């Protein structure tokens, strides 16, 4: 995210016609927006597409942003509308495995918005470093599930149960949060 002065200077440049300055905004707010959308969509590709649409809409309507308000929240407001429209358009072909996420993400809106507001860009950098510090077996589970492996297949590969695979993932998420907190506190 940008400091207030930096954001206003950048907005001024864009509004004066220096469109390339908008990339500064994309770089600063892109990771947080992708995380916000990625938390509610099954495929990251869909999240990226919506993030791009959000930035395009923001670019076209930049003059409607009221200075002094939270720019990240403004972007997420646009993104939320895009998300709802996406859900409407794809509801008919949504497969069972996505149903729970769609309904639950509706219920978690307030909490996810709160998490987004508190997320800083350096958390992504810290996350990368923290993933490499996970024990091998746990890291393998995290990466495999993110890569689309099914938990039962992973359980078979690791000679364990599906429940144990999910428990390893849950443990990993807790370890990652602790590690990020440590890294950002800049302590050892």
């Amino acid at each position: 995210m940008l400091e207030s002065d930096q954001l206003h200077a950048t907005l001024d440049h864009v509004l004066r016609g220096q469109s390339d300055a908008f990339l500064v905004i994309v770089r600063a707010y892109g990771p947080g927006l992708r995380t916000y959308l990625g938390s509610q969509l099954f495929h990251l590709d869909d999240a990226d597409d919506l993030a791009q649409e959000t930035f395009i809409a923001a670019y076209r309507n930049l003059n409607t942003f009221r200075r002094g308000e939270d720019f990240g929240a403004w972007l997420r407001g646009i993104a939320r509308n895009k998300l709802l429209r996406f859900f409407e358009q794809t509801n008919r072909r949504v497969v069972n495995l996505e149903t729970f996420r769609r309904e639950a993400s509706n219920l978690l809106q307030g909490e996810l918005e709160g998490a987004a507001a508190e997320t800083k860009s350096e958390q992504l950098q810290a996350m990368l470093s923290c993933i490499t510090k996970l024990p091998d077996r746990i890291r393998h589970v995290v990466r495999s599930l993110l890569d689309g492996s099914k938990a039962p297949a992973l359980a078979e590969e690791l000679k364990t149960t599906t429940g144990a695979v999910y428990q390893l993932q849950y443990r990993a998420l807790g370890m990652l949060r602790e590690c990020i907190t440590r890294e950002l506190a800049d302590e050892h």
Partner: protein
Amino acid sequence: MNTDLQDALIAWQGGELPAGRSDALLERLKTDADFRRELAEEVWTLSLTKVAQAPDPRWLALHEEIGLMESQFKVMDGGFEDSLMKTVRREPLRFVNAWWRWAATAAAVAVVMLSTMLLVRRGDTPITSGETLAVLVSGSAENASRAVGAGPVKVDRGQARLLFTHGVIVDIEGPADLQLLSLSRVICREGKLRTQVPKGAEGFCVETPRGAVTDLGTELGISVSRQGQTDVAVFEGQAELSVQIPGQEGMRTALLNVNEKAGFQSTTGEIRTIDRSDFLDTIQPQAPELKLPSDYSQRILAAKPVHYWRMNRHETSMIPNEIASAPSLLMVGGASIDADSYGRSSARFLGQAQPGVLHLEKPWQMPSAAHAVEFWFMADTMQQMSLAALTTTDDMRPHIALVEVNGKRPGEAAGAGILRYLLRWPPGHRDGMNLFSPKAAALPYQWHHVVAQQNEGRMQIYLDGRAIGPAITDAKPKGGDCILQLGCLEYRPEQALDKLRRPFSGRMAEVAIYDRLMTEKEIAEHAGRR
């Protein structure tokens, strides 16, 4: 882990649950705020994990919308970056001390001079705005490193190295025409590159005309001709090649394994095995010379330090103290004394490749009031590294004071070139009072003079003779036996060397400790400032 949370997380990821279970979980989510908060925390971490590991998206429609497609980002060369510099000239940063404005001016002048040394074409000089993505180091000229943000990097001839803040290294041989987009994306229109991508930075992507080479955690050679021919060799690991087929939406991809080579031609979209062997070797940027006056050691001795190690010689594994009867420093692991290419000896540290440390053979009785630590250092990586630490003699070596480079300042994404001075009392492994330099103040491949000092909890750090701080802490060090260690976060003699944390990579020289505060005048003199 409670069963509902586990099941909700399984359902969230599309896992199978018994009939009716999903509905029950949704009902609980409607009524139980704590449950919503817990699930949101898990879901957010999952998403953060996913995004952190994914490559940056290629948002072509957005680029087209803002007019960057046709000109291939050329609009950035002189537009926004120049304007920002004009803005900076008009409105100096409010929170920056006056001397940093002068430093910024001096740095801008230095950038122009260094660009000439690097043979960067006039008018294409990249100017950092916002985040520093990397440091550009000349392959041959001395003292030629500078921070670069998103923007063009051109090398007409000779070699250069880009050290990205997250550990990726890109060696470059000119003529080369690059555009830095982010930490994970670079456009290369022409040039020979060699990329080294460490664990955690997989997915680093070099975009070339109509194609892309994605480094999947490897060492690659990439050659891009002015005519659009891209050749790739995998020296370690794997890489993915992708090329747009002219006249259609299709994109051909190919996975290359170790020792495989292939090339693609932008005009045909074909990927073919190749036989060429003239890929760029890893380059070794030349470290600059530490230029000190011939009477430097006399000046230090005249300042009456309690310890002074010149680091210019050693006896077996001991570095002698220039102060009579004061203890030596012990060399451990990869730390050594050797001569650089200019013939000057200094302490050399090899970082993660061969961790090493220098530490006091006997404790020093730190005074209760003031102390100062002075040294010269030159880093050769962008990793967070510990330079000097004062710890107690306790087995766990809790810190009293610590000086680090490239550490993150809270609230910022990367710590490129940031110097940190930390004071902890009572001694410990957490908390404390910090002072941070501005970004890019202590870049690699440059010698820097450092003085870190405190008096009754009033801390100040001087970088190259210029003051940062003060910071004042109520937790004043009370003195007592302590150990000086150089080159890692904490060293315990029984510890395996490969477990050393934040090992320093670079050189260090002329280390002195004082039982008093140094004056601004003597600091400026020692740093070579008038």
